[in-house]
């Protein structure tokens, strides 16, 4: 099946159930809110090696934030609420509390809650105070530029999805990168999702396991163009590069919407930039609970 000259594989992206939480970071300017969000999202690409997958969902206008300042919503995904909580505490404590002018609020509403300010408040060394407004409690931690305000808890959902993906294949590496960038930008308009890898793009897709003991994942040799001829390659003779976009979302619908947005962007922009084919990563359908069939999500 070809759309706009791009072959769409009859396959599906296989994704996994995860727990997801989020925070809203505000600051005196959007630049500084984003600065804190970027640092908090650092080393948050893969839950296997980083403990959590973290990224910016979207920027928030002043009227959308609890304190009326510009903000950024960051989402964080892990295997369970118990795994998410320490990651959140450490990242907020080291990356948001420390950022000039920042404040941090709950970014997900749900019945189930995990600590947000419960750990960082102790930085106040007894000078911290709390203020309850409605159902929310805010901690005020004295810091050298005034006060760090942080909400006590944030919501966590256990029906989040991690590992939704799209593979972009083509004959022009630079064109592929541009196409992938445009697809990531399109996903940016979809709420409740992140693309946790650098710039939202992965060049090192992996397979489960390795010839080396202790490695839980290793290079996806079937999609490595330089191994064509040596392994059972999935690539055609004209493919010089493959880039992957990995998507995590607070719900399965959000991930499906993100894949749909990515596919539309790739189809609209890709052919002229050397994209020849779109595929998706899966493990035969036996590991992940969520399957996203590419052809069902075409625009």
């Amino acid at each position: 099946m070809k759309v706009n000259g791009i072959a769409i594989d009859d396959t599906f992206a296989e994704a996994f159930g995860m727990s997801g939480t989020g925070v809203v970071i505000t600051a005196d300017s959007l630049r500084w809110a984003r600065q804190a969000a970027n640092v908090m999202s650092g080393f948050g690409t893969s839950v296997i090696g980083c403990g959590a997958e973290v990224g910016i969902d979207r920027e928030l206008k002043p009227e959308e934030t609890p304190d009326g300042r510009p903000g950024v919503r960051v989402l964080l995904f892990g295997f369970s609420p118990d795994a998410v909580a320490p990651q959140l505490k450490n990242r907020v404590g080291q990356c948001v509390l420390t950022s000039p002018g920042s404040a941090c609020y709950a970014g997900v509403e749900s019945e189930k809650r995990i600590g947000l300010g419960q750990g960082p408040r102790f930085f106040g060394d007894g000078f911290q105070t709390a203020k309850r407004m409605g159902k929310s409690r805010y901690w005020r931690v004295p810091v050298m530029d005034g006060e760090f305000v942080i909400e006590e808890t944030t919501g966590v959902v256990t029906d989040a999805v991690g590992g939704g993906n799209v593979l972009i294949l083509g004959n022009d590496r630079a064109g592929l990168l541009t196409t992938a960038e445009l697809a990531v930008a399109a996903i940016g308009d979809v709420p409740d999702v992140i693309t946790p890898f650098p710039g939202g793009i992965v060049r090192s897709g992996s397979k489960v396991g390795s010839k080396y003991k202790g490695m839980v994942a290793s290079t996806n040799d079937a999609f490595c163009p330089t191994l064509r001829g040596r392994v059972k390659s999935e690539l055609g003779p004209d493919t010089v590069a493959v880039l992957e976009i990995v998507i995590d979302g607070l719900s399965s619908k959000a991930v499906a919407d993100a894949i749909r947005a990515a596919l539309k962007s790739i189809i609209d922009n890709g052919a002229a930039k050397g994209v020849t084919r779109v595929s998706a990563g899966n493990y035969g359908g036996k590991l992940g609970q969520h399957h996203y069939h590419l052809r069902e999500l075409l625009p």
Partner: protein
Amino acid sequence: MSGLTFRLSAAPDERLDLSQLTPGRLASIPLADMLRLVVGTSKRGLTVGDLFAVSGKPGDTVKIEGGSSRLDFVGAGLDKGTLIVEGDVGVGAGRQMKGGRLEIRGDAGALLASGLSGGLIFVKGSAGGHVGGLSPGDKFGMTGGLVVVEGQAGDRAGDRMRRGTILVRGRVGAFAGSRMVGGTIWTEIGFGADPGMLMRRGTLIGPTVDKMLPTFADSGKHDLVILRVLSRYLTATLGPLAPLPLSGTVRKFAGDLATIGKGEILLTA
């Protein structure tokens, strides 16, 4: 919106305890039994039927028409629905209220919102002393909820208050926030003498203070993010009743240093 209306026949000649006249308590009482409810506080045993003309059907609203400073404990224990008083009320209005809305379209006596833990109290006129304060036998004053007083508030507002917010459009009397443990009192005109006496935590916000206790330390001018959060919370909760958002910096006084000193008086002018 359905509900009952209690029209006061004449000014009562004794103090009345109207704590039973809430939507929740009246929901399951037949009219005949309702008229026999004792609301008098003397040995005469005055009943609802002796004092009020009752109309309407039980619902989510109760309206009391004809106020008096002898109508005590109006809305006490209210947990849902709306209670409206067209006139003045006496002491203890909204005492230990847990939810719902109490609207007093007149003045309120002492101990308004004492022990309040949830819901909204709105007073069109002024309130007496000890708004949100401690009643004898209680451990704390107000522990949650919102109180809006359009007029003035008397002395010792928020005495031993623990949580919640009191917003006074007019002036607040002396010793506001005495023995306060938490929560917020916000006046748009100013505080009387010695606010925050022996307060441990909590926030007093206003443009002026008649006399500041020597046990409050000047911490300087600050742009506090928490005040932005508070302003937006009040705007979202109260709508047009909310105070104008604070702009710019406030001058912070920390105290009462005769206790743990984690409270604050924030001067907006």
